């Protein structure tokens, strides 16, 4: 195509047409200017295409891909938590969460989004700030467990003309039993916090992940959690999915079967209703935890994703510390429940035998201090059996006085006191078994023999957790075989064993049997027809009576009861701690109820009791106070 002024042509025409002012030839030079301009413009345009299409095609291909391909998470459902019979304790329900794409986020959309989802605008802004250093393609989960109104808001506002940065994701929410049943065992889940992400334990999680924060949910988070999948979808400019081009299925978390028996758990929960304390039931033959209750309770459903600030404050500010799992974290003096350990220590070391007797006149003096017996009038002449049955303090003062503290500590240590039992729950407490070494370590002082007197009746520096006590007495009842308590089934473990003289063990057990079954025994309230329950009461002071009186404060003693059954080949050991219960006798019915439930169920062949059939259905077990006979507290 010719585009320069066609001079030869115009010249060719010239002879036929004289050049006049009206002749276009006059403008031929200026037409050439236009033609050059046109050439320039077309080169300019082609250079633009060259830049985009030939020099950088990969860049724009990638941008086009990013435009059209969206990566959406498929949330892996957490594993369910089942009881020992396979009944569901913790289930999932279908829910929605909303995520914000940070690549397309417009900051002035935050306020209307926060309003639409009824979120606090400042919280939302702070949450986004925390993501500042993370890659842009990582979305932010801004709300989980959407209400139907929230879902409607997202659905109607995720079009380009509103807030296209919002995306609705299907997820699985956690349903915990109502009324806090087994709350401390199960724990709760929540969004992983910034602080946790810095810990090695949580290193593999990402901001926004919902992880176990407490209890079994935390201990077995890796088992329960599963691996989120991802969908690669092609979307159009309105964010509508046109095609799925890749899918990585989520790997659901594994179900977890606990050793907890919901029937026993329910009975223990009801027995502790309105009280403060803990109940632990173990199978001494295996260490399986059959029931574990801590009171007061909290509602894990409030935690399941992101707890409201007000709820969190009310839980944290509660003077009763509902988040404390008293079964493994409360460290209190065991009081007289320690006496069976003292007894076996005295017998095994040869300090006493079953004929060794002391006179109890309501108290006795040691090293210049008068130590009272709990029975003002005294028990008279007391040997081992009566000493345990009547829980005579003077008898045990004398035993302790004759022994070396390190020998007492040896048996207490072997029974598992003063150390973590290793139960599969986080944050277990250790308790204290005093010894000469312990004294030097803690106070840089030597041990005074006079301190033995308090330790001998389970006071002084000695503290235990309910689960330690259950394990200690259960192992003793087994003749010196202590299993590690555990909550998840099928955990092989090597029990701790100590060679004990079976006759000595029998003497202690006989005493514990008398506590429950003999007239005058302190634990007769734990008596059950048809099953020989053995046990020991404990009334433990939190501080010395003198101290309390001098301060003019009244501190109620803790009531303990530890019981096992049957006497031969025990199958269950139960500890009840009733904080402020004042007398060990009052803790005995709690233990009795749990043991009764165990043997009732066994007699039925393992089925749940009719009255508890509600609890047998999948979570949440609904318990009504009328469902179980509650022990009367005199």
């Amino acid at each position, binding site marked *: 195509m010719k585009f320069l002024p066609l001079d030869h042509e115009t010249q060719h025409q010239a002879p036929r047409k004289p050049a006049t*002012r009206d002749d276009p030839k006059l403008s031929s030079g*200026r037409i050439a200017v*236009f033609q050059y301009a046109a050439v320039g413009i077309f080169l300019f345009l082609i250079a633009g295409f060259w830049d985009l299409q030939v020099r950088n095609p990969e860049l724009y291909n990638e941008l086009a891909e990013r435009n059209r391909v969206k990566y959406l998470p498929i949330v892996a459902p957490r594993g369910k938590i089942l009881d020992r019979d396979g009944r569901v304790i913790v289930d999932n329900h279908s829910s929605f969460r909303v995520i914000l794409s940070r690549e397309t986020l417009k900051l002035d959309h935050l306020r209307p989004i926060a309003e639409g989802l009824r979120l606090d605008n400042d919280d939302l802004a702070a949450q986004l700030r925390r993501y500042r250093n993370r890659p842009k393609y990582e979305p932010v989960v801004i709300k989980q467990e959407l209400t139907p109104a929230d879902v409607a808001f997202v659905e109607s506002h995720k079009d380009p003309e509103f807030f296209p940065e919002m995306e609705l994701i299907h997820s699985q929410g956690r349903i915990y039993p109502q009324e806090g049943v087994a709350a401390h065992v199960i724990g709760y889940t929540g969004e992983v916090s910034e602080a946790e992400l810095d810990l090695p334990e949580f290193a593999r999680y990402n901001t926004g992940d919902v992880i176990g924060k407490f209890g079994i949910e935390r201990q077995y988070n890796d088992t329960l959690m599963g691996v989120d999948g991802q969908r690669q979808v092609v979307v159009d400019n309105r964010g509508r999915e046109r095609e799925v081009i890749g899918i990585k299925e989520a790997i659901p978390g594994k179900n977890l079967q606990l050793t907890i028996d919901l029937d026993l758990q329910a009975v223990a929960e009801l027995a502790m209703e309105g009280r403060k304390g803990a109940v632990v039931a173990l199978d001494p033959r295996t260490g399986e935890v059959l029931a574990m209750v801590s009171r007061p309770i909290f509602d894990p459903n409030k935690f399941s994703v992101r707890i409201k600030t007000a709820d969190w404050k009310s839980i944290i500010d509660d003077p009763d510390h509902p988040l404390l799992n008293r079964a493994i974290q409360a460290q209190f003096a065991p009081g007289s429940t320690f006496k069976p350990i003292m007894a076996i220590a005295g017998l095994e070391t040869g300090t006493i035998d079953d004929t060794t007797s002391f006179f109890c006149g309501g108290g006795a003096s040691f090293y210049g201090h008068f130590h009272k017996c709990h029975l003002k009038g005294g028990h008279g002449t007391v040997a081992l059996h009566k000493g345990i049955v009547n829980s005579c303090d003077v008898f045990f003062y004398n035993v302790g006085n004759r022994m070396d503290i390190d020998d007492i500590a040896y048996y207490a240590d072997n029974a598992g006191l003063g150390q973590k039992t290793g139960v599969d729950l986080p944050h277990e407490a250790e308790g204290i078994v005093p010894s000469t070494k312990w004294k030097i370590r803690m106070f840089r002082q030597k041990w005074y023999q006079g301190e033995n007197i308090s330790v001998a009746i389970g006071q002084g520096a000695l503290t235990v957790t309910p689960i330690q006590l259950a394990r200690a007495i259960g192992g003793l009842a087994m003749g010196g075989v202590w299993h590690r308590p555990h909550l998840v089934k099928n955990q092989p473990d090597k029990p701790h064993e100590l060679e004990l003289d079976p006759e000595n063990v029998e003497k202690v057990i006989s005493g514990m049997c008398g506590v429950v079954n003999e007239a005058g025994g302190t634990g007769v309230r734990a008596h059950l027809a048809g099953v020989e329950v053995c046990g020991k009461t404990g009334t433990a002071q939190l501080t010395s009576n003198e101290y309390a009186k001098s301060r003019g404060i009244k501190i109620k003693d803790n009531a303990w009861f530890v019981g096992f059954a049957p006497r031969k080949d025990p199958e269950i050991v139960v500890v009840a701690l009733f904080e402020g219960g004042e007398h060990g006798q009052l803790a005995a019915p709690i233990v009795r109820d749990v043991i009764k439930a165990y043997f009732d169920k066994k007699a039925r062949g393992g089925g749940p009791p009719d009255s508890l059939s509600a609890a047998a259905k999948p979570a949440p077990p609904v318990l009504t106070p009328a469902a179980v006979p509650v022990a009367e507290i005199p």
Partner: protein
Amino acid sequence: MKEYLPARDMDWPLIAITILICGLGVLQIFSATHGTIWQDAWWKQLFWIAAGLLLMWVVTAIDYHTLMAHVVGMYVISLVLLAAVFLVGKQVFGSTRWIPLPLGFHFQVSEFVKLVIILLVARFMTELKSDSLEVRDLLKIAALVAIPMVLVLKEPDLGTALTYLPILAVGALLAGLNWRYVAAIAVVLVLVLPVAGLYFLKDYQKARLVSFLDPDRDPRGTGYQVIQSKIAVGAGGMWGKGLTKGSQTQLRFLPVPHTDFIFSAFAEERGFAGVVLVLALYFMLLMQIVKNAQTAPDRAGMYICMGIAALLLFHVLVNVGMVVGRIPVTGIPLPLMSAGGSSMLSVFLMLGLVNNVRLRRFVN
């Protein structure tokens, strides 16, 4: 005066190029709209092409001198119609450009005013007595062009209003405006336009300018179109994704891929190779028109052809420049490719005028 106009004297290469561009446009419209609410745009476009070819032939029958003789009346009618747009116009996307007609058609007055301005400039320049254009005369014709321009600007339709300027500019250039004035006007424009822009442009027009200068600043807003267009073009690469295979076009990330941004869609699906082909066709089209200007029987015919060439060149520059992000988004169609009746008919009318001039090159 009845004259004999042999059909073989029509500019057949010009018509062939036109039909070729239109054909590629129809394919692209089909590809960009199938499966959408605009999916019948391609056969509508075929209808407009047919109507346009007919109109082109009809226009050749009326001697352009006759048309120029009536240009004052046409000019007045244009102003009346532009004013009427404000009274009975149909508002679309916040701007009133169309007068509704029977049968559901809409008439974009500003598109046809282009033709009147071409004839007006041609007549004004022809009637000049001197060999060079005096500034006084330039101001006169500029004022005449400014009146419809302001009316179109008020619609508001900056893009179309600007298309009147190259007609005036090329007219002034060919009328022999002193080079010094050309340079002076260019300098004044460069200095005054940005300032004037701040006062006279609507907010969205300013935003378009800002986003043109820095498209990443506001990726979902006005810069969105530029970014998406560049992505579409770039993703096309050397050979393109193939018709109906371009993801940016098919998933509608590209705004209006059958009208203003049809060339982005074309570039994505046909690649650099297709782009060069079509730009070459446009260039040949322009040069064919320029050739007709050079062979025109008189200065009036030359002014008409060159005005048309300048206008089409401006359209291609602004539309295609916008597609590659080198010119701000003003929203003017790509002649012969963008879907739309008013634009198609006005281009075919212009090509009719070119043929009109060509057929009379041996007359006199």
